[in-house]
């Protein structure tokens, strides 16, 4: 376990891999009213403006509004997609809220602790992990012992944090202006409070210098999914609100119409995917986004997409299931469903998202695959990625727009011609003269006419499944392998485990990691090649059943590979990972 006691920045220079970079973890704890989220957001925006990378995760209590609220923020000189599990700066407005964060917040001797001055009473033992005296400030305004509304606490805290981090107050004011510009009176009130706290007693310092990176971008996983899709040519979206995916629809409402696209809130998820297939039948690149319950509801419609050969992208922001489960918590347990659900034999592709940066790339690839091979493509995100806000580098323009092979008069082949390359034929877009045909979920002849002939059904299945061969060929390198090439301990994982494992290999010179970008069809040859020379293989995932492990066992010989799997909830952190690996080894 000792390895985990070091956060990234303390790794002795000697065995620190070149990519290692100084970073700071800031934890902010308060109650709903305290504006913790806004405070975290302002700090993250300031980081981006200073050329720093970083990310922020948030957690709420069950209450819709009010209740405890916490933010963990990390800023660093290189891209990070893991919030770290050691806290360098810890701010808490209310001693009472501390208990809940036992364990979640892990201090070290150098940690800076900022507390409410008037909060008398015993500090929990774990605060002692820091050798530095807690800094106390009167955030709350008291009138004979009772708290009354005074200066916005988050603004006072912003000023103090600027001083702790050594960040320019001017930048804070500017960012605040940017954020609250549309509410002038609020802005003045907040600036006043900010200035007051700047004048207060000197807080302990934990500086991080500005970085060199330019044009950094701050967005959430859901925003990145929405924008990545729009950038890849998406022009129709239909969805139904569901946590943690709703912001995908909300972002597209803001941004897609300006690009000539249409966004509809459907009456349910069946209708949402139905509308998507209708638009796709019209030749328009289309997608929907949902989470587990909606995903399950779409099952029949996915079969139609595959059978009628209508491109469709289905984004699933996984949450803890089954049924309604734990809507705000992350999990990786929709993999089986994405790969296997639906009556009958139907080809589909499944991609997984690593982090906010990868989200845009993944959406481009998903739309490309669905448009090129005319089938449904699932993109699996999860609550951990969807709800996180992350700073990323500047965007590159995509390599060119995804294309659907389009039919035109005189071209010849029937809509469902068997002979097309990879089983794909030119798509007849409504409006094309002489192109009329019958699309159907009923098994059909090459012309699309209904049939009950088993021989034709077999031919059509062959045609449709040839698409998977084409995809497998094209995507055989769609994975990321990192860590020392000759390392002898290997971890296979997918999706949001990416950030954690990126840092795991940095702390474990003898470790390497394989993460598929496409889960079905799986780049199995690459995996088999990668496994050569390993003494120990672990499959790490947030699924009680270990769905990835079981799935791989059906594709290749996994004997000896150990499943490191648990149910969803909080994402895994370094120390937990080390613990689970140790257990699995015993």
């Amino acid at each position, binding site marked *: 376990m000792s390895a985990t006691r070091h956060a990234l920045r303390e790794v002795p220079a000697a065995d620190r891999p070149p990519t290692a970079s100084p970073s700071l973890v800031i934890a902010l704890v308060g109650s709903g009213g305290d504006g913790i989220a806004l405070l975290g*957001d302002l700090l993250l925006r300031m980081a981006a403006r200073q050329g720093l990378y970083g990310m922020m995760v948030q957690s709420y209590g069950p209450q819709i509004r009010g209740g405890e609220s916490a933010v963990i923020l990390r800023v660093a000189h290189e891209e990070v997609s893991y919030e770290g599990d050691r806290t360098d700066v810890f701010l808490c407005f209310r001693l009472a809220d501390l208990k809940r964060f036992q364990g979640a917040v892990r201090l070290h001797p150098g940690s800076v602790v900022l507390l409410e001055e008037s909060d008398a009473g015993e500090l929990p033992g774990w605060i002692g992990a820091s050798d530095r005296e807690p800094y106390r400030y009167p955030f709350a305004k008291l009138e004979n012992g009772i708290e009354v509304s005074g200066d916005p606490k988050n603004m006072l805290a912003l000023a103090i944090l600027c001083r702790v981090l050594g960040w320019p107050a001017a930048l804070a004011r500017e960012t605040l202006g940017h954020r609250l510009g549309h509410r002038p009176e609020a802005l003045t009130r907040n600036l006043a409070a900010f200035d007051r706290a700047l004048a207060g007693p000197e807080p302990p310092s934990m500086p991080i210098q500005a970085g060199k990176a330019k044009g950094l*971008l*701050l*967005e959430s996983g859901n*925003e990145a999914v929405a*924008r990545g899709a*729009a*950038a890849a*040519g998406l*022009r*129709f979206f*239909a969805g139904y609100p569901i946590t943690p995916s709703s912001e995908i629809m909300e*972002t597209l409402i803001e*941004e*897609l119409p300006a*690009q*000539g*696209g*249409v966004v*509809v809130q*459907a*009456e349910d998820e*069946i*209708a949402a995917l*139905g*509308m*998507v*297939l*209708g*638009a796709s*039948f*019209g*030749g*328009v*690149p*289309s997608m929907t986004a949902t989470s587990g319950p909606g995903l399950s509801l779409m099952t*029949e*419609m996915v079969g*139609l997409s595959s059978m*009628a050969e209508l491109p469709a992208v289905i984004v699933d922001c996984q949450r803890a299931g089954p049924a309604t489960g734990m809507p705000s918590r992350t999990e990786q347990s929709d993999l089986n469903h994405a790969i296997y659900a639906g009556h009958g034999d139907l080809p589909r592709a499944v991609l997984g998202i690593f982090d906010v940066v990868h989200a845009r790339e993944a959406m481009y690839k998903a739309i490309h695959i669905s448009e090129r091979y005319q089938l449904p493509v699932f993109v699996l995100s999860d609550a951990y990625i969807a709800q996180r806000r992350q700073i990323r580098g500047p*965007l590159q*323009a*995509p390599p*060119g*727009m995804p*294309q659907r092979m389009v039919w035109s008069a005189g071209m010849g082949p029937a809509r469902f011609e068997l002979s097309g390359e990879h089983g794909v034929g030119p798509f*007849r877009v*409504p*409006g*094309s*003269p*002489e*192109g*009329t045909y*019958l*699309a*159907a*979920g009923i098994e059909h002849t090459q012309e699309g*006419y*209904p049939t009950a002939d088993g021989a034709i059904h077999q031919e059509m299945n062959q045609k449709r499944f040839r698409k998977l061969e084409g995809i497998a060929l094209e995507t055989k390198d769609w994975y990321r392998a990192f860590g020392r090439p000759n390392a002898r301990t290997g971890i296979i994982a997918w999706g949001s485990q990416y950030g954690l494992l990126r840092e795991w290999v940095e702390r474990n010179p003898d470790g390497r990691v394989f993460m598929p970008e496409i889960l079905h069809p799986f780049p199995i040859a690459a995996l088999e090649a990668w496994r050569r020379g390993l003494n120990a293989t672990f499959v790490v995932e947030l699924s009680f059943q270990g769905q990835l492990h079981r799935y791989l066992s059906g594709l290749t010989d996994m004997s000896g590979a150990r499943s490191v799997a648990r149910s969803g909830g909080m994402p895994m952190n370094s120390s937990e990972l080390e613990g689970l690996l140790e257990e699995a080894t015993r």
Partner: protein
Amino acid sequence: MKAKDYRSPLEPVWCTGCGDFGVLKGLTQALADLEIPPERLAVISGIGCSSRLPGYTRSYAFNTLHGRALPIAAGLKLSRPEITTVIVGGDGDGFSIGLGHLPHAVRRNVDLTYAVLDNGIYGLTKGQSSPTTEIEFKRTRGLAGPDERPLNPVLLVLSSGCGFVARTHAGNLPHVREMLREAIRYPGFSFVHVLAGCVTYQTPSYAQEIYQRCTLLPPEHDRTNLGAAMEAARGDRFQLGVLYRQDPEVTPEGTVEESVAGVWQPRLAGVSEDTAHEE
């Protein structure tokens, strides 16, 4: 173009005497009247005997899933407004499994025409009761469940705020033709309730009975008066004609103007610092 130019090579598999033949004919006639080019036409259905109709038309036809024609048609029309889109289906398809989509399609008021071929039975699955099956018939057939009252689809659609509501009878070809023509012309969501007998699973006399129970709306009927339309819908006789027509001030919003070519133009979304920084 003539009506027959809107027919596909496919021969209907319907039983001889099935009401659906009349609707196929009436629809192709209406399309010919309106001179809609087949390549600008989409005919979309769910699953059922009646839902086989699109395959018999020369159009971009889509025989979708049981009960799901409405959202699929809406997706097409919203993204391709230049395509005339007609939806056909049965009473089971539209009023049982698909009912949840109907009031929303009406509210959304996308420019679609929805014709329900109502034979008061599940034909394709061999004669189970549908939401419009009358209790007596259900009783005699000993069909499942407590004594459900039949649904009044026309009243339901009126209550959902539909701007064009008509009823016709598959046995009256000129009337079917006229109603469908008017409905397709209407710039918004239009609903046509078509009484169409099932000669195989209804009591043999059914089509006849239904026909007896039909009357044309009286000339004095005010089709712009919702109250009057609801009255007419609630009458125990089937009143044929345009029960309600509300001329829409606005044509539906939120549709793209682009041609297909248009939507393929590559663009880079949300990359400016500002939008990217906005929440």
